């Protein structure tokens, strides 16, 4: 230790008062932390791998139409069918899992590593740290969805061309309009996915355990699927989070059906907002005794 270094360490008489950093600064650093961690790429890698495998398999076993879905029937007619099919498949379980991998870990991991105390003894308030973490978890979920969609779109177009496509209603839209619909469908799917991420953030904060955070969120998704399948509970089905995973289907109809999207907005808010508020309150008052 160079205790004799010339520069004074104590605050100079003209020292400025440090301003409180904005939440945006904390958010940017949360993203940088995610970028620096290998496990971040595990989820994204899975999100990329699946469409790649799908495209390869479809190229090897070239089929001309068929399948239950109208988009499966068009797989070799338009590359834009691939991202839609992938979203149909991944939205059920795969993307919620990827989103939970980060959201369920984002607070608990810092607790386990003891780094929470390091950042909470700087000039950011606890509320800012929580907001930054929640935003970073949502950002990751959005990146996962769009990255998977991008790979599926590029793979599909490269294999089967950028052609017009038929929607659920059977009407044909142009290729460029179809591309916009794919992007919009991904955006709509983010609504329930964000709710899953918010639940995972709450569990991560409350349990201080990454496994509980990730597994708990996925467990809730599975539980809701089970509840949806129980005879006699059809009445609550429209209010189950998992039912909102299909909210984007209305976009791929002619005319566009916005009702599922608006319905999912408030239903998902019922899951997301209380989770975030509860997580925030727990985070504000919790004892940081680890590390």
């Amino acid at each position, binding site marked *: 230790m160079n205790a004799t270094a010339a520069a004074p360490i104590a605050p100079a008489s003209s020292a400025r008062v440090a301003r409180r950093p904005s939440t945006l600064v904390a958010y940017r650093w949360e993203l940088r*932390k995610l970028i620096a961690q290998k496990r971040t790429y595990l989820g994204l890698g899975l999100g990329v791998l699946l469409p790649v495998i799908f495209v390869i398999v479809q190229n090897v076993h070239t089929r001309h139409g068929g399948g239950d879905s109208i988009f499966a029937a068009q797989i070799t007619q338009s590359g834009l069918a691939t991202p839609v099919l992938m979203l149909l498949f991944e939205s059920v379980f795969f993307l919620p899992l990827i989103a939970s991998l980060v959201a369920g870990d984002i607070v608990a991991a810092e607790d386990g590593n003891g780094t929470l105390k*390091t950042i909470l003894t700087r000039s950011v308030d606890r509320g800012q740290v929580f907001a930054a973490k929640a935003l970073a978890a949502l950002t990751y979920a959005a990146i996962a969805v769009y990255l998977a969609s991008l790979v599926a779109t590029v793979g599909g177009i490269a294999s089967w061309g950028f052609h017009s496509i038929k929607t659920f209603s059977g009407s044909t839209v142009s290729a460029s309009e179809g591309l916009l619909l794919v992007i919009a469908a991904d955006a709509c799917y983010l609504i329930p996915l964000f709710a899953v991420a918010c639940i995972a953030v709450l569990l991560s904060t409350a349990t201080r355990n990454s496994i509980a955070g990730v597994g708990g969120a996925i467990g809730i998704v599975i539980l809701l699927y089970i509840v949806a399948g129980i005879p006699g509970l059809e009445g609550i089905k429209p209010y189950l989070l998992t039912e909102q995973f299909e909210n984007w289907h209305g976009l791929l109809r002619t005319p566009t059906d916005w009702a599922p999207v608006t319905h999912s907005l408030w239903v998902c808010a019922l899951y997301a907002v209380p989770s975030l508020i509860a997580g925030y309150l727990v985070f504000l008052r919790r004892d940081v005794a680890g590390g």
Partner: protein
Amino acid sequence: MAAASPPAAADTDAPPVRARGLVKRYKEVLAVDHIDLNVRGGDVYGFLGPNGAGKTTTLRMALGLIVPTEGTVELFGRDPLRHGARALQGVAGFVEAPRFYPYMPGRRNLELLAALDGDDAAAERIDEVLEIVELAPRAKHKVGGYSHGMRQRLGIAAALLRRPRLLILDEPATGLDPAGMRDMRALIRRLADEGITVLLSSHQLPEVQELCDRVAIVDKGRVVYEGALADLRRQGGAGYRLRSSDDARALEIARAQAGVERILRDEHGVGFQADEEHVGALSLALGAAGVGILSLTPELATLEDLFFRLTESNGAAAEPPGDGSRGADLSRATNELAHVLPHGGGGSR
């Protein structure tokens, strides 16, 4: 050397640390039991106690990391619970081992912390603090590959980035080699000379004795002594060491002399405890007996002696506080100190 200057929003008259009736209870376990602390500006304040005494819990409450069950703690007049991060303005340090993101280089960790301080100047000081803790050559290496001592030094660097007026250090020398410990002491001394108040929790009692001017000793969650280290050592009893022409005879005379207590003979002569009046009487008795006095030197008890005496008196410390518990504590502590051996580092324990 530049003088410490308080941030504009701080209460300039408020002490760096002022805790009143601090309690932390975990279900049935009372970790901290009505602790009062008074760290004054410019203090190098030792915070001592055995493992599990409640030191780290107290420091965590001071930094706003855990919520007290009762009581308040203020840093420069601001309570971390009420004022949030603003209460930590001008405050830096770490509790237990400093922790960093292992997947990022040391420098990147400091950049993150500087950003979270909201101080552009802090970012410009990164190279400087890395030089101070001699981590500049390893700054681009991931913290995951750092040794414990290197992380400890990075913790110091992270604290110095904030140009603190109050530095809270919890066992800063842990994991350092002897040279590192020496350098750490020199750094703390330098910081104190620059006007930074240091709250030092440490098990290294010689280190505390060398560095600190005031101490608090906690045991079983309660403060058993708080005050000047010099006063504590004085209260520990006026000890003397006698070297004479005939130590065996001197021992007999001392034993026969009223007011001379705790007499021990070893290779360094005869040690005993007495007030000045009885020391004078002993000197006359030795002279009358024909025993020559080669040297008669007063010795203060070491902090280590005092620490063990205060913290190993289990029964009283475990009692719940009565009215004016602090006074009762100090009274008890003073009584305990009356029995402290006076040997000065002779390892007589």
